[in-house]
């Protein structure tokens, strides 16, 4: 997995976000087994405590499930994943509207421009 971590924000939060993205996009499928904390930490080149903190938080939200003997798994709850996907999309859109606003575009203008570009894209 390709991790993109900057050091200005807490790393564990970024790990949570990126694991969520992997789940939403389907790269990690429902029911998939996760590698060990140590392997994930080495893959991301981060401190194992930091990775553990991210995983524990994801467990708390129910996105990851722990089986004491066999490790951590992605939830099979499709509804939960769908809800997360929608929430992520909503956040992206709000961020985009905000950025366009900074450039001087009102939401209505942004929408018009957006539709036009999407139409002409393919």
């Amino acid at each position, binding site marked *: 997995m390709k991790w993109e971590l900057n050091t*200005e924000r807490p790393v564990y939060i970024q790990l949570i976000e990126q694991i969520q993205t992997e789940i939403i996009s389907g790269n990690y499928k429902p029911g998939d087994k996760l590698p060990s904390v140590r392997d994930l930490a080495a893959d991301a*080149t981060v401190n194992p405590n930091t990775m553990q903190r991210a995983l524990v938080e994801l467990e708390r939200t129910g996105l990851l499930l722990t089986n004491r003997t066999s490790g951590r798994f992605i939830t099979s709850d499709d509804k939960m994943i769908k809800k997360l996907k929608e929430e992520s999309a909503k956040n992206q859109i709000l961020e985009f509207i905000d950025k366009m606003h900074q450039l001087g575009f009102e939401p209505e203008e942004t929408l018009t421009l957006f539709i036009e570009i999407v139409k002409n894209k393919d």
Partner: protein
Amino acid sequence: MSAILECKSLTKKFSNFTALSNVNLTLERGRIIGLLGPNGSGKTTLIKLINGLLVPNSGSLLINGKLPGTETKKIVSYLPEKTYLPEWMRVSETIEFFEDFYADFDRKKAYEMMERLHLDSKKRLKTLSKGTKEKVQLILVMSRKADLYCLDEPIGGVDPAARDYILNTIISNYNENATVLISTHLISDIEKVLDDVVFLKEGFVTMQSSVDDIRSKDGKSVDTLFREVFRC
């Protein structure tokens, strides 16, 4: 289990100056800690005190509850800033040397790491470049199952790819009972691997914090904070 290192009012003076002043520091087990500070701030002095190479003028320093000595040297693995192994030794002989000295030395692990970094174990140290010698020494130190690893500038003279490998070795070596203390200038390379940092300035501990606290409270990386705090 108790803290691996406890310093109380630790002071070390040399004939005309004070290297460490009243240092109070506790290092917990299972943490990777960055010891950060400008040149001459006292980092190497602190590490030498931990390893019993220097004796404090006042205050106390306990490792796993004991004073530095034979018993603590069994559980502390030290990587000095300058290479110290004899130039005439072959890499394989340095492995045997460490095996003789330390009961917790893992020979198989050392050879595996040497191979991964393409180091020829038959070569004599004097034929190796500075960076390669540093890699050898780091592998020897990390092949011990110690409770406290003191690494003084472990990635300084080493190329970026090897740096990544070394950081990965530190991460993979991690266990909840052992602590790694890394003294370095190359903060941006290493900060994702750190749990906590200790800032040392002119012999005083000016800050001890977890890296995530710095990022969430100050909204900046440790590297950025360091540059601000120690601006010339």
